[in-house]
């Protein structure tokens, strides 16, 4: 009896602890969301002056901010597609074939993961400056694909670990071409790994501050625009956009995690 009581106490203490950690994680986000509804009109936009949607209206007029967000989306989409294609075929090739220099590639893949982002940022900056690659969307794509590729490869590779090669061999034995085998046998098996890698790449690209900071030229991404406005005191329309982004991503997660999409698809069939 006493033991049960102690156990229950332990459990609620654990729950309280976890609650506090989550509070720590979400506290600044709550600040951002609340401030986005703040009716204040004077700098530094901090004291609470009542509830309003005014900043969401302001956001629609702030074309520079919206443009930067558009840049971020384009950059993330292009980088995700490129790094997913390059990473996926690389992971498959490294899994299937033995060749010289494989361990070198393996080691090189960890460099963008482990070295501080600032080092990758300045290294790319010096390269772009020297070989005269104009800094802008193109250089940003190069930079983002570079730090996304390893994560795609790791994700796909994790999926390959449990992969049965005989499936592919059977397909080829039956006279199906290599390319067709890849698209009909290999790809479907790897799909979850590829999806996970692509999602991670997208997240990394959208969130990147440091590498973009050094490689952007005049093309401002959303984080860079935020950095700019922090220096002049963030206007709550930045908070408003952040809040909207948060809502969209949370909705996305809830929909995918709860299997709602799957259920909807089933109903259609």
């Amino acid at each position: 009896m006493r033991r049960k009581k102690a156990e229950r106490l332990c459990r609620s203490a654990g729950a309280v602890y976890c609650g506090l950690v989550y509070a720590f994680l979400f506290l600044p986000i709550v600040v951002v969301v609340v401030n986005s509804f703040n009716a204040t009109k004077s700098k530094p936009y901090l004291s609470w002056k009542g509830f309003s949607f005014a900043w969401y209206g302001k956001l629609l007029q702030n074309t520079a901010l919206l443009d930067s967000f558009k840049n971020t989306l384009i950059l993330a989409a292009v980088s995700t597609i490129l790094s997913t294609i390059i990473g996926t075929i690389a992971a498959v090739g490294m899994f299937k074939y033995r060749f010289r220099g494989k361990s070198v590639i393996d080691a090189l893949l960890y460099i963008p993961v482990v070295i501080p982002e600032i080092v990758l940022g300045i290294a790319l900056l010096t390269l772009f400056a020297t070989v005269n690659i104009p800094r802008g969307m193109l250089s940003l794509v190069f930079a983002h694909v570079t730090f996304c590729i390893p994560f795609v490869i790791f994700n796909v590779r994790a999926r390959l670990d449990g992969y049965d090669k005989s499936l592919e061999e059977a397909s080829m034995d039956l006279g199906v071409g290599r390319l067709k085998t890849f698209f009909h046998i290999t790809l479907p098996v790897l799909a979850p790994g590829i999806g996970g890698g692509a999602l991670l790449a997208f997240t990394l690209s959208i969130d990147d501050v440091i590498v973009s900071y050094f490689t952007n030229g005049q093309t401002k991404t959303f984080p860079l625009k935020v950095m700019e406005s922090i220096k002049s005191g963030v206007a709550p329309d930045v908070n408003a956009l952040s809040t909207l982004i948060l809502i969209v991503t949370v909705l996305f997660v809830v929909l995918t995690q709860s299997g709602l999409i799957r259920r909807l698809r089933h109903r259609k069939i």
Partner: protein
Amino acid sequence: MSKHKFRSSTLPVLITVGPVSLWLAFFVVIPLLYVFIMSFCSIDENYNVVFQFTLDNYRNLMDVNYLQIYAQSILIAFFATVICLVLGYPFAFLISRTFRSRKTFLYMLVIIPFWTNSLIRIYGWRTFLGASGWLNQTLMALHLTDSPMDFLFNRFATILGMAYVLFPFMVLPLYTAIEKLDPSQLEVSADLGARGGATFWNVVLPQTVSGVFSGCIMVFIPSLGYFYVADILGGGNSDVIGNLIERQFQSGNNWPFGAALSIILIAVTLLLVKLYQKCGGDMQSLGV
């Protein structure tokens, strides 16, 4: 026969591994080599890089002012790592021990803050801790203090910010390591009369130490470079090595010196990773 063909052909290797090799060569190897070379270069009076061999950049690293910043940066990274570990270990343990359905949800709750840009979250902290922020307003409303307290623009704020931004990087490897733990082992240990503490030190910790190591690496190394956290929360009073590098490549414009600083950062990183591997750490668990 087809099996033989499968393995020996070079064309598929070129097609599959060629692009990634080129990419890594061009955007990782060459730039880093170039930084290495640049760290031995000089600059002319217009701050242009001149290819003239010098060790001055490395000599300048020993400047007392810089030495102070390295020490401060390492201190900040160290405390951020300790905070993440102490806060994160019990947390990862608790969430990995809940029911399956709830576990995914709790895990997602750690990831979701990631999707609000880290700059914005750091700015959220600045708003919260500022002179007219919620914390000071609360303290003043409770009459715990008469005038706003300075929570910002010091080392404490920077450590908090680093720990905050990098916390998930500690929790995720810990979570993975703890999840692999066999719950029956804990029961056996308890049944054999071991107290909670003994079970932890002898059963739980040895099996999750890889997670601890990779978590520490994933927090410590980045916090040497996250200059914007030190900028926004430290306000120039608690610069890290990243701030020094950033300044060389922006306003200071002494690229070769910035390159030398970066080489030091790379050296520290390699050293830590080697140490990590020596302790039996698996590189794969560093990839999040």
